[in-house]
């Protein structure tokens, strides 16, 4: 009997100790390109480590972390108290939050759209449905077509809490499954407006945003985000269940190193330092 118990305990401990060489990463669609680049480069340097990256949205990644089906969760928003509570009940841990990069949430419009700047208040009014025509913000006399993300997206939550002041999105918003799809939709729609990570802004114009009517307008570029001038700036997070150890710790340390942070710039986001 003692031998059986000892064998079971050995199996239990050994399976948990050697599980770290394959690292699974799941979550934010905003971060998926960045996470893939990190993984590709790191695996080239460390062929003994396998890193599997998938998207699905921050909410999906956090659920996977709570379920124990991912080692690392990418999230473009902080975890909510209710999510932390679930993690605590399942694993008796608080989770560890790691800031990996900065991002300016860009506002995209079609290349034909003459509007170049907006105030935060105007952005809020547009997305809550109070402003419905481009001429109200200095554009053409045409209806504003709103593109948004789905509610499992961290960008959706961040934008709602920080730009809309937690007010509801206009019911006319068309929710797109990912940032790439949203950019594509705006690129085709002369009256469209969308938002997302600045790394995706290809084939469309980015709006310069003012904190208020009297302040200067800033584009979401590296300097403005780094200096905190661009008003819609956020951190991109990684969450892990417990303090990372072994291969996972080495990987996260590398992401936070100069080498990992160079990848952040190359992909189009902004390094921490």
């Amino acid at each position, binding site marked *: 009997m003692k031998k059986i118990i000892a064998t079971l305990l050995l199996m*239990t*401990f050994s*399976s*948990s*100790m050697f*599980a770290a060489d394959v690292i699974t990463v799941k979550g934010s669609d905003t971060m998926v390109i960045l996470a893939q680049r990190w993984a590709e480069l790191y695996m080239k340097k460390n062929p003994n480590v396998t890193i599997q990256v998938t998207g699905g949205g921050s909410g999906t990644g956090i*659920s*996977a972390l*709570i*379920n*124990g*089906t991912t080692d690392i969760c990418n999230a473009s928003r902080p975890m*909510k*108290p*209710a999510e*932390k*509570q679930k993690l*605590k*009940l*399942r*694993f*008796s*841990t*608080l989770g*560890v*939050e790691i800031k990996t990069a900065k991002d300016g949430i860009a506002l995209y419009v079609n290349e034909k759209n003459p509007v170049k700047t907006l105030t935060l208040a105007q952005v809020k009014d547009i997305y809550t449905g109070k402003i419905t025509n481009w001429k109200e913000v200095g554009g053409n006399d045409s209806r504003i077509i709103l593109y948004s993300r*789905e*509610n499992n997206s961290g960008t959706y939550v961040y934008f709602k*809490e920080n730009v809309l002041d*937690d007010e*509801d999105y206009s*019911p006319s918003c068309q929710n797109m499954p990912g940032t790439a799809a949203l950019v594509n939709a705006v690129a085709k729609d002369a009256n469209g407006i969308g938002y997302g990570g600045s790394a995706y802004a290809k084939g469309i114009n980015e709006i310069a945003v003012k904190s208020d009517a009297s302040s200067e307008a800033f584009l979401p570029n590296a300097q403005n985000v780094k200096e905190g001038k661009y008003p819609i700036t956020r951190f991109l997070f990684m969450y892990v*269940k*417990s*303090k990372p*150890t072994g291969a996972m710790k080495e990987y996260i340390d590398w992401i936070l190193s100069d080498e990992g942070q160079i990848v952040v710039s190359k992909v189009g986001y902004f390094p921490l330092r």
Partner: protein
Amino acid sequence: MKSFLASSIMVVLLSVSLYSQEEYIDTVKIPVQDQLDQLKSNDESVNEILLDMKSYIDLARKLKFSGYMQTQYQVSDGIGNGAYPIGAFAGGAFPTSVGSRFQVRRGRLKVQYENDLTFSQYVLQFDVTQNGLGIKDAYINIKDPWVKSWNFKTGVFDRPFGFEVAYSSNMRETPERSRLAQTLFPGERELGAQIEFAPELGDWTNYNLKLGVFNGVLPNSNENDNRKDIIGRVGAILPFDELNFAVDGGISIYQGTVRNTSKFAYTFNELQKQFTVDSTATNAGKNYERQYIGVDGQIIYDIPSLGGISIRGEYITGTQPGTSSSNSFYNPATIQALDIPGGKTKSQIEATSLYQRKFYGFYVSLLQNIGTKHQLLLRYDVLDPNTKVSGSEIGTAGKATTIADLKYSTFGVGYLFHLDDNVKFTFYYEFVSNETVNSAATNAALVPFKSDVKDNVFTFRTQYRFPF
């Protein structure tokens, strides 16, 4: 002449060739244009279909189905008998002559509709087992649309008392709740209305409050008096992220009454160590207190390289109105059926009379995670349904003490294996110990308890849940 002929033939051939090429280009151009028009038309059709589908997708996002099933095999060191129950708090008493069994302990299906715009929620949860179909939850939840920190809930839902009552069975590590929780809150749920303060943002996120008004009967019973019971809990969470450590806890109250259907009201006289009866005629219909106060707490610590450990406990004390043979709460809806007008036998009087007992109970559990798949568990729980009497004082002739006054303690040890995010296996053994009564006891129900009865239970449970 030859050169003229040759030139003429060349011109004719070239003309024919050019004409043929132009004709070819025209024949190619037209289909390509057609195809582009066709593609454009197809694109518009696809867009229309997608827009139509979007309404269904939006509905599917709002309408959520989830559920779990728990099947189990149990074996006891005793055999089910008429003298004392085995496994009554481990999924239901074993039938007579039965020492092992298979069960579908829970088969839950939850249907939830959430409207993001109005912050309202509709929830219906069914339970299907080998015994049939039952309704567990049926409630409406409305979140305040302004500060989004308050919830109003009404219908049938978990009573807001302590930690264990509202801790979902699919998350709970032990197969069943403690004897304490099952005795005080049978079915866990109640019919009523509740407000909850649970902010998601700001300085108050670590504090929460639930306060509700309930019928004070069972979840599947109708109200039987005009008084409502008040149940509430206030809680706080203190996280120390840098230390991988957190403490949380709360204080709960239950302020309620039950209606006596008989004129007999027994209270325990501590000096005489016996129940004394008040048989004033006006006792019939009078309300008697059902009052509990409880504290619950949890400490968690994340052990590096191993996994999180949690120590959780709950202590509840108060006054419980019961009957002669039961320390579960006095439920007029059940008792009334026994309340035969006119002359009653002694057993009928005992069965309908109200017995007030001071009680206390607690549980402490320790859970160690090992990696993400394994959990080891220890739990100790105690229920003393009558704190004024113990051991050999129970069963003394003429004192009216019964099996409802017996103190129980249960020590459980378990191992849980999470195969994936759907499947969980639980192996759990519980050592159940009862207080031993007076060796001279003659009450037939008490006689087996002159020693510790054989009622330990081993449970092997398989759980499947979808989605999380």
